[in-house]
């Protein structure tokens, strides 16, 4: 049974309100940090905890914080990235909806560590009702002296402001988010300079994911050492996984990063297996941007080891034979799902969400969508598959921001692992519209390498 650090109290009646949250031990980390620790000590704790960013890239949070420039007389900002728009990822939504005060608490401690007197939460436009929940929580925190001037007599001032996005996935990319926060068009910036040096209004800025900032609370409460004991290797602490697709129990799960992928999919405590006793075909383990894996590479690595739900194990095998933890959006496909169709869906998404600044992503995403559409609707050619491969290859790595890569990877992985399914679509233009290619050999055990 995994240990819960974030969602432990999610089911407590009324936990959304300040009184209940406080009664259940809320805001203790703020007391501990502001009264007994210096900002640098808080940063050190976070470093020691081994916490890695939960927004997708998995960059060590403490290290990121230590990069923030501290020029004299210039304000710094912490910005919470609550733009969560990656298909398949809905963990931040759950956390904010049910435990708004946990995020606020994490934000105050983190703001203290970074010296941010004005902290922003950039929230996805479609999460309008959560905006209200968080605004209510901020007001309650402020009324109870956790925000405002001279918090707990520590001399530290902090205000948190909500900023609602306008429905663009790209505004989740940290520099586009900053542009949007400044009131501009959400185009990613060209880096360097990095936000830690020149971020919002050219001031040093740290952008962190909702879950990352919430995890600061247990780290301070239990101490970095205890926190680092949970999990394995460089995957410390717990991770929220939003599971969806063909599983019996879709939802948000908090796991410690030692359980196997198999247990996560089939375990009663987690996804509870695949409905109708169908077989597993494939899975995207970390949100739509990460490579899809066929069942035989998902449950076991190419080396034949059991694949574990953590950063290292999921990426074992690189892109050729592995995937990524990403943002924790776990999408399961059963034997009746069509990989071509699914890849088309994703390509359409990235085409629609490209900001259009740089040529490879602007033009390449649309082109891939059109070709995929042809293949899916029985109008494809064999050369189209190679063309798709060539297009994704020319987008990847050549763009301003990682959205280009995120658009290229799913296409690359689908062709890499499911090429015969693409070919079947080309060879069987009529059948491919009547039924699916099915499971084929994707669940067969792999030849030992």
């Amino acid at each position: 049974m995994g240990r819960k650090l974030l969602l432990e109290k999610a089911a407590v009646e009324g936990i959304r309100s300040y009184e209940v949250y406080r009664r259940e031990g809320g805001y203790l980390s703020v007391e501990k940090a502001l009264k007994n620790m210096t900002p640098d000590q808080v940063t050190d704790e976070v470093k020691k905890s081994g916490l890695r960013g939960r927004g997708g890239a998995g960059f060590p949070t403490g290290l990121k914080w230590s990069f923030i420039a501290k020029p004299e007389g210039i304000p710094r900002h912490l910005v919470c990235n609550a733009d969560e728009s990656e298909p398949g990822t809905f963990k931040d939504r759950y956390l904010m909806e049910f435990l708004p005060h946990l995020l606020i608490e994490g934000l105050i401690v983190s703001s203290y560590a970074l010296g941010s007197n004005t902290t922003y939460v950039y929230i996805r436009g479609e999460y309008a009702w959560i905006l209200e929940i968080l605004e209510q929580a901020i007001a309650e925190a402020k009324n109870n002296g956790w925000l405002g001037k001279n918090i707990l007599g520590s001399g530290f001032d902090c205000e948190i402001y909500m900023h609602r996005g306008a429905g663009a996935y790209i505004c989740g990319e940290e520099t586009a988010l900053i542009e949007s926060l400044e009131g501009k068009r959400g185009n990613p910036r060209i880096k360097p300079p990095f936000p830690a040096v020149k971020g919002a209004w050219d001031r040093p800025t740290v952008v962190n994911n909702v879950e990352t900032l919430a995890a600061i609370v247990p780290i301070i409460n239990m101490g970095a050492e205890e926190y680092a004991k949970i999990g394995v290797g460089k995957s410390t602490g717990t991770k929220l996984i939003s599971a969806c697709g063909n599983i019996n129990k879709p939802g948000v799960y908090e796991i410690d990063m030692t359980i196997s992928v198999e247990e996560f999919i089939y375990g009663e405590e987690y996804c509870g297996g695949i409905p109708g006793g169908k077989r597993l075909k494939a899975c995207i383990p970390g949100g739509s941007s990460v490579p899809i894996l066929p069942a035989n590479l998902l449950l076991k690595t190419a080396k034949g080891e059991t694949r574990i739900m953590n950063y290292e194990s999921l990426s074992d095998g690189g892109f050729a034979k592995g995937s990524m933890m990403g943002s924790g959006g776990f999408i399961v496909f059963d034997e009746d799902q069509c990989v071509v169709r699914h890849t088309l869906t994703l390509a359409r998404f990235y085409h629609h969400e490209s900001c259009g600044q740089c040529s490879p992503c602007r033009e390449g995403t649309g082109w891939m969508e059109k070709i995929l559409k042809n293949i899916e609707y029985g109008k494809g050619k064999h050369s189209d598959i190679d063309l798709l491969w060539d297009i994704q290859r020319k987008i990847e790595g050549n763009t301003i921001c990682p959205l280009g890569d995120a658009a290229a990877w799913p296409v690359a992985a689908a062709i890499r692992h499911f090429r015969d399914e693409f070919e079947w679509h080309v060879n069987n233009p009529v059948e491919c519209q009547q039924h699916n290619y099915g499971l084929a050999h994707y669940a067969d055990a792999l030849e030992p390498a």
Partner: protein
Amino acid sequence: MAEEQKKLFKVTIDNITIEVEPGTSILNAARKIGGDIVPPAMCYYTRLKGSGGKCRTCLVEVAAGSTADPRPMPKLVASCRTNVMDGMVVKNITSDKVIDARNGIVEFLLINHPLDCPICDQAGECHLQDLSYEHGLEGTRYEFPRRIFEKHDLGPYIQLHMTRCILCFRCVYVADQLTEKREHGILDRGDHSEIATYIKKSLDHDFIGNVIDVCPVGALTDRTFRFKNRVWFTKPVDAHRECNNPKCCGKVTLWYRGEEVFRVTARKDQWGEVDDWICNECRFEKKLTSDWVIEGPTMVNRHSVIAQGHYVGVEKPQEVLYDVLDGRKPRLFMDIHKISEVNEPGRDLSKIEGPAHSTDFVEHKNK
């Protein structure tokens, strides 16, 4: 006061080493060397702050970051927005990766381009034409309808042909930086982005005509010149006048056909960038020789078919071939000795009496 000697950074681009001031971009360092090794730049514009980084045509490979940290950079970088470090080693045309990526970028830029060069006023001085000539495929692999927009007349002087636009953002920066009234010029996002028509508002501005000069393609054209002539029939002449507008430099290029001035543009350097902005009055209203003091024929830059003509002052690329040959596949030159028996290096032609015959060489070989 003795000026402190600034430490210069040494950077090697395609095997040619040059010293530049810290803060110089790779692109500008390459431009200092000149010739074939200069990456093409479709969106960067020296005089426009914040420009560059978008088109990705200038991508280069950094084989060594610096002397202090000689690791290569994992991805290709935009040379217009990456500054050199001391000891940096850059590969442009000597890198297969770069050429491959650049071919890809050019293809991306062209898939939605109308390729209506025969009826486009920019033809002959279009950077996209140059680029596709060097890097483009013979045919297209794109089998879908191309993106089309309506033409817009943006006021009396400028026409916007959004269909041809490559979204380099240069005109947006011009409007931002030369005029006071506006912030953005691009509506929507992705491949349906368009230069917004509310750019109209700033079109009354004295300096907005400069968007025509910065546009690398034929998306923004001069309505007073449209369809009047092809640029390669016109003859460029440098001229100036006392302009009343204090911000206008008054230095222009007049494009003549016969005795008639067909259009007026700002003066451009060899990279196709303007030396200084000119006002609308100079550009659109002064089309008589008597308005101007003529200086002489224009030095023709490499970005123009006019350079194929016979005007004086044509600039040739620096002789860099031998420097870069190492590792590079020359496009045109070949080792004559390898394909012809006639010019054998071992045979001293000056020793042969009279006209040389192939038999002279056979003998030589048999010796």
